[in-house]
């Protein structure tokens, strides 16, 4: 059994027109037993930057706490928020530092950079960055997510259409994965607002 299959997770981030969406499932399990159906995998780093962590939940929490700490120090020193590209480099460096004893996490980073240009990125557990212009996926349902996103994605979607696409891709993929599901949590971020929605999905 792979360590990533211990807790189960599904994460996806997609780029739209001057906006982005990041979505996750809500299950927390211990192998095949479900212990929570409202687990938060996506956290806010600052108003325009979100981080989703898939994989082993304990490493995800530790990594999140370390990253928030580093970002707060950055904010104190630089008196501004971190750009998404800079944050991605920081996460990559922190993960690569543990190259020979890694954190069992795959982060998905999504943010609005300069001039409200959306930025998404994912990494493997040792920090190899993958910058995509359309969508990125992570978690146990990643193979289904790749297929669903590849066919459903369109360029330059408006926020409402982007929300529909991301939700459909997420729900259809987690339905084919035993270890993730129990609803969905979608954040759609535009330069003026953040819309957080909880989806109704199959509870099995």
């Amino acid at each position, binding site marked *: 059994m792979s360590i990533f299959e211990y807790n189960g997770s599904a994460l996806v981030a997609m780029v739209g027109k001057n906006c982005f969406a990041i979505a996750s499932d809500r299950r927390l399990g211990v192998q095949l037993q479900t212990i929570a159906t409202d687990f938060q995998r996506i956290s806010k780093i600052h108003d325009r930057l979100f981080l989703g962590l898939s994989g082993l939940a304990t490493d995800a929490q530790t990594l999140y706490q370390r990253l928030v700490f580093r970002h707060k120090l950055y904010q104190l020193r630089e008196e501004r928020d971190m750009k998404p590209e800079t944050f991605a480099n920081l996460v990559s460096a922190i993960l690569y530092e543990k190259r020979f004893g890694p954190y069992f996490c795959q982060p998905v980073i999504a943010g609005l950079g300069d001039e409200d240009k959306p930025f998404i990125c994912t990494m493997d557990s040792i920090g190899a960055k993958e910058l995509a212009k359309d969508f990125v996926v992570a978690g146990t349902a990643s193979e289904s997510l790749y297929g669903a996103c590849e066919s459903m994605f369109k360029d330059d979607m408006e926020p409402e259409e982007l929300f529909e696409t991301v939700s*459909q891709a997420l*729900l259809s993929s987690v339905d084919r994965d035993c270890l993730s599901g129990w609803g969905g949590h979608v954040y759609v971020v535009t330069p003026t607002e953040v819309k957080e*929605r909880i*989806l109704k999905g199959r509870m099995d």
Partner: protein
Amino acid sequence: MSKSVIEMPPKGGFSFDLCKRNEMLAKKGVSPPSFRKTGTTIVGLIFQDGVILGADTRATEGPIVCDKNCEKIHYMAPNIYCCGAGTAADTEAVTDMVSSQLQLHRYHTGRESRVVTALTLLKRHLFNYQGYVSAALVLGGVDVTGPHLHTIYPHGSTDTLPFATMGSGSLAAMAVFESKYKEGLTRDEGIKLVTEAICSGIFNDLGSGSNVDICVITKGAKEYLRNHLQPNPRTYTSSKGYSFPKKTEVLLTKITPLKEKVEIIEGGDAMEE
């Protein structure tokens, strides 16, 4: 007990904190994760005016393609570029690290970097980690002593060659080079040959795919041709796309308006004493 209460940013290098825990998990039957590799076909050749490097653009995670258009030709110095195969995190980290060391060295000496300097820095690092940093590199550049092309293996051994291939598609690419390479190629002939070799890797090796990236380095100039050839376009997308008439069921919506960014214009009234 030796750890201080405040976690200071580390001084650099690897940290082996979690190794014991990961070993314990492995003993309990939990297999370690697979890392992103760059299956890859990477090539380099020396032509009459300099060096041409080529690479495919597929990144794999096991049997799945995780990135259809990644960049495998890394910048080392204005006159030196390096293609990387093997574990993606290792190639990126090692090339970034040596690129920074070369920049510091340039500041220190005030001279253009030499290819052998990059070569030595890379091979020392890789040998130090005895092959565990899994990066196989093709390093090429033009400096004051002329054009150079080297290959570096994960254990730290190097070769100096007129044409070189590395990665899972190296046999396919080498077959093309061995039959068609000759000394004194012109720029266009060289680009054509490199493209052919990479295409041979893309079509015959399962670990390589997507597009061809080329980098031409000559004395005093470099040309990075990103996606020089795209022999695998996506032709099957339907123009209509997906539409979802029946909307997704939402249980809860929370809207957080973002703060208006207040523009502070300097040059207001002077402060009263």
